[in-house]
């Protein structure tokens, strides 16, 4: 069976937003990546010292995988069909059936065995999204939102990444659009998305999340060199910046992307205040980048205790205060 669906691939920064944006385009709805990100309330902050990956506490600038997806479909009224399969061969034959019917199909895959990925980024991360839109001989045509152009994977390569193991194991999970609205009603969805983000950043009553989480991390980071020694302290700090500047954040832990969203939202809602705020979040993003610069230096001199930890912790505290003020203003701007 050879079948290639006429599917337009567009590169985006983040995979989850990108897949939704590309799929919606196929069904005649133009919605940009920042718009998907903002409506899906993709901006977040969490620092969980007890949750460790490779022995390093997890800091994250986004909600758990799949959350943006869930929110955007609910808020825009897009219905997705979702399936998981216990048998890999069945997962592949069901995909073939979908392609035969002309349905571009999204799926979750593990990154480690993704052959076209750059090696330095191949970790065991299992919540990557892509769209399969065709098959020719043994090759599947892949629209992977982070790549410039389309890619191909063989039957066995695709099966392997669909059955990657470990945290967030995809188990052949695939999804496709069952019902999409004729026109996206953005206004209400934007307001819902913004409200949710403000709530997440300001009011979660645990110190690990939102603005409180940034302050919490600032306190922890100040003690890293004393508590952990030079080398380990550098590893812990480096991890924060790896999460912040990871592929898909669009820079500065999604802060710049959120600015792009607010700018678009200000046009849709005819609300000039949001445009001012879109510049303010860009300035906050610049502070995060400054934090990354200090961290880069710490990591470079990792074998001796660097004196920059205090400066880094001070900067984080400053960022936390800036974000607190920012999200309070944002909340007001839409109420």
């Amino acid at each position, binding site marked *: 069976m050879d079948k290639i669906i006429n599917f337009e691939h567009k590169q985006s920064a983040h995979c989850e937003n990108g897949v939704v944006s590309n799929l919606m385009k196929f069904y005649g709805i133009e919605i940009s990546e920042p718009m998907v990100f903002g409506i899906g309330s993709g901006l977040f902050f969490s620092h969980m010292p007890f949750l460790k990956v490779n022995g390093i506490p997890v800091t994250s600038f986004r909600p758990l995988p799949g959350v943006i997806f869930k929110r955007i479909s609910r808020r825009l009224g897009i219905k997705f069909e979702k399936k998981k399969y216990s048998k890999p061969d069945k997962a592949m034959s069901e995909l073939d059936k979908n392609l035969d019917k002309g349905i571009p199909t999204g799926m979750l895959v593990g990154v480690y065995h993704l052959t076209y990925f750059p090696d*330095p980024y191949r970790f065991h991360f299992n919540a990557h999204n892509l769209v399969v839109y065709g098959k020719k001989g043994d090759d599947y045509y892949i629209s992977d939102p982070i790549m410039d152009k389309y890619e191909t994977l063989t039957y066995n390569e695709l099966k392997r990444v669909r059955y990657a193991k470990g945290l967030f194991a995809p188990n052949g999970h695939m999804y496709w659009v069952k019902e999409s609205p004729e026109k996206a009603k953005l206004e209400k969805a934007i307001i819902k998305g913004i409200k949710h983000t403000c709530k997440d950043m300001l009011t979660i009553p645990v110190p690990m999340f939102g603005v409180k989480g940034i302050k919490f991390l600032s306190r922890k980071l100040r003690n890293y060199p004393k508590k952990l020694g030079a080398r380990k302290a550098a590893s812990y700090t480096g991890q924060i910046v790896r999460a912040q500047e990871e592929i898909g954040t669009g820079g500065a832990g999604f802060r710049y992307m959120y600015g792009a969203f607010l700018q678009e939202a200000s046009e849709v809602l005819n609300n000039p205040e949001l445009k001012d705020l879109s510049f303010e979040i860009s300035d906050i993003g610049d502070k995060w980048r400054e934090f*990354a610069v200090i961290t880069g230096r710490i990591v470079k001199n990792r074998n001796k205790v660097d004196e920059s930890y205090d400066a880094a912790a001070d900067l984080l505290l400053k960022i936390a205060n800036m974000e607190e003020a920012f999200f309070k203003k944002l909340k007001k701007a839409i109420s």
Partner: protein
Amino acid sequence: MKSTDVPQDDANMLQGKFKEPVYSLDENGNYTTVKSVGWDPKNEVMQEAWDVINEKVEATREKVLAGELSPIAFHLENNLMDVSLLAKYMGFWKWKVKRHLKPKHFNKLNDEVLEKYAEVFDISKDELMDFTKFTKK
């Protein structure tokens, strides 16, 4: 960040496979994306993470050569895995995989199990058995 300030510090982290879109403000104050090949601080923290991994891989290689651990221990590290992840790929309990890290038990493994390990590590069974190919990087 201004579009003109988007860094282009190449450390070959993306191996020329694509460039990353970075959101930034153009001269008219409109958000746009600029494709970037990399940024020094980010390259630095990525490199550090890989250094940690590579040191672990080297230490394990030495232990395999000294006969303290089986080749499976090396390939486990070399594939960025831990015992629990490898156990999931193998469909074994963790304690079983842990045993296979010891040369004594590894030497008694049957062909079927060895084939399966080799498949998970993306190498041939001969490569798994004959560690000489992995003595130096």
